[in-house]
């Protein structure tokens, strides 16, 4: 079964079969990164543009490595220093990219829905690499892949997502994906950091981290996004830490096989203690490695699709 759409815009748009296809494909791709020659010829002749309108290091590098391992020609295009700063509109910029025959556009933008806007007007496939506080589908897919590699399945797992949920596109995408895969999701945060209409998401909510930890198969810590907070939502980082930092003491309350995750970058000492981040339960660096495999899988699934449509 192929993907139904030409784009990957959010987990909300994917059905369970598509999520499984992507994760299964990614599992096969992780082997390529272990080879001496970490490259296959699959996307030779395809052009992928990494269009980042917001600072990003790991996501952009992860996409770039994935593109190169599939032999695609990848072009990085950051907004600073481009004609964007000369007043060109987003759509004009993308039309220019298309006129240069880009096959896939990987796009990060600060405004929710920016990649949807472009995808509906472009022939190229668009992969959303994060749009404001809306979705970050590749992060959720790599998180689900990493969990699945440890547990075999996502069904009936209890996953606690802890921290700045309202500002987190990682949390939103993970909530959509985990709920579709029938995991039990508990959001843990102070009320000011929870989204509105949280009841519609199909999740449970708790303000008390320590009462949730003993139930959790997976604890997913989120970064406190200082740059996204326009107003003061927590009294201080110190106070936040006191209640919501994952410390070695709190981790002792968890089941023996608990998995600790974090999408990065880490605020060591704020939401996660260094001893936990580097400890035996942490699978944070596996998430990073799996990011490449997931992105390779998506590029492969979309890249083959675009040329099939052209030839038909």
């Amino acid at each position, binding site marked *: 079964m192929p993907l139904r759409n030409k784009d990957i815009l959010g987990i909300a748009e994917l059905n369970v079969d598509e999520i499984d296809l992507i994760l299964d494909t990614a599992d096969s791709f992780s082997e390529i990164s272990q080879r001496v020659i970490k490259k296959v010829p699959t996307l030779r002749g395809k052009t992928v543009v990494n269009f980042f309108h917001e600072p990003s290091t790991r996501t952009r590098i992860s996409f770039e490595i994935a593109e190169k391992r599939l032999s695609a020609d990848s072009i990085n295009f950051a907004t600073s220093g481009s004609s964007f700063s000369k007043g060109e509109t987003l759509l004009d910029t993308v039309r220019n990219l298309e006129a240069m025959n880009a096959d896939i556009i990987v796009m990060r933008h600060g405004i929710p829905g920016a990649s949807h806007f472009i995808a509906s007007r472009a022939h190229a496939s668009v992969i959303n690499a994060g749009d404001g506080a809306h979705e970050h589908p590749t992060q959720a897919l790599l998180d689900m892949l990493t969990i699945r590699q440890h547990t075999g399945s996502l069904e009936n797992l209890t996953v606690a997502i802890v921290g700045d949920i309202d500002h987190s596109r990682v949390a939103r995408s993970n909530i959509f994906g985990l709920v579709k895969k029938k995991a039990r999701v508990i959001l843990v945060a102070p009320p000011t950091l929870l989204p509105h209409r949280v009841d519609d998401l199909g999740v449970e909510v708790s303000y008390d981290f320590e009462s949730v930890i003993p139930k959790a198969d997976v604890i997913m810590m989120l970064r406190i996004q200082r740059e996204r907070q326009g107003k003061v939502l927590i009294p201080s980082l110190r106070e936040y830490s006191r209640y919501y930092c994952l410390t070695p003491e709190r981790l002792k309350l968890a089941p023996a096989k608990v998995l600790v995750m974090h999408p990065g970058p880490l605020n060591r000492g704020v939401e996660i203690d260094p001893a936990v981040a580097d400890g035996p339960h942490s699978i944070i660096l596996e998430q990073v490695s799996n990011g490449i495999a997931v992105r390779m*899988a998506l590029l492969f699934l979309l890249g083959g699709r675009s040329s099939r449509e052209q030839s038909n």
Partner: protein
Amino acid sequence: MRKGTEPGTILNESEIRDVIQRFAQEIVSTYPDLDQIAVVGIQTGGAHLGRRLVHAISDRARQEPDFGILDITLYRDDIALEINQPIVRQTDIPFEVSGRNIILVDDVLYTGRTVRAALDALIDFGRPRAIRLAVLVDRGLREFPIRPDFVGLEIATTPDQKVHVRLKEQGESSDQVILEKGD
């Protein structure tokens, strides 16, 4: 072994067993030092047959040669033409390829395009000393200059015919190769 091209079962379970035994015999006598060889099966039929060949070799030589499986999807030349999404399966080559004699195993040899892709995939792992090709059925109609070194059954077919290899590893009740009548 050569048979007519009447549709129906062209290889039954015991014939398939005999083919694997014969391959094992030929390989053991050609390569007395089994450290020099490795068997690589192409996903998915070739991987099952390759595993059987490894067992047949170790029964004779009391030594198990290295075994790997290869998925060639990412090296295909028709990904853009396929209507259906090809499924990427696992590749696992857990040994050093360089300097080895690789016995590449597939179930059916037809156009030669799969083998071409497998050769490209294999040499990305290193520089083998040689690559030999073992196939259960050679149905002719080659489009590339590729020939097998070990052949179970050679038959003449037409492009509209289909050759189905059914193996127990894939959940079949018995092993057989079936030639389906053309249009």
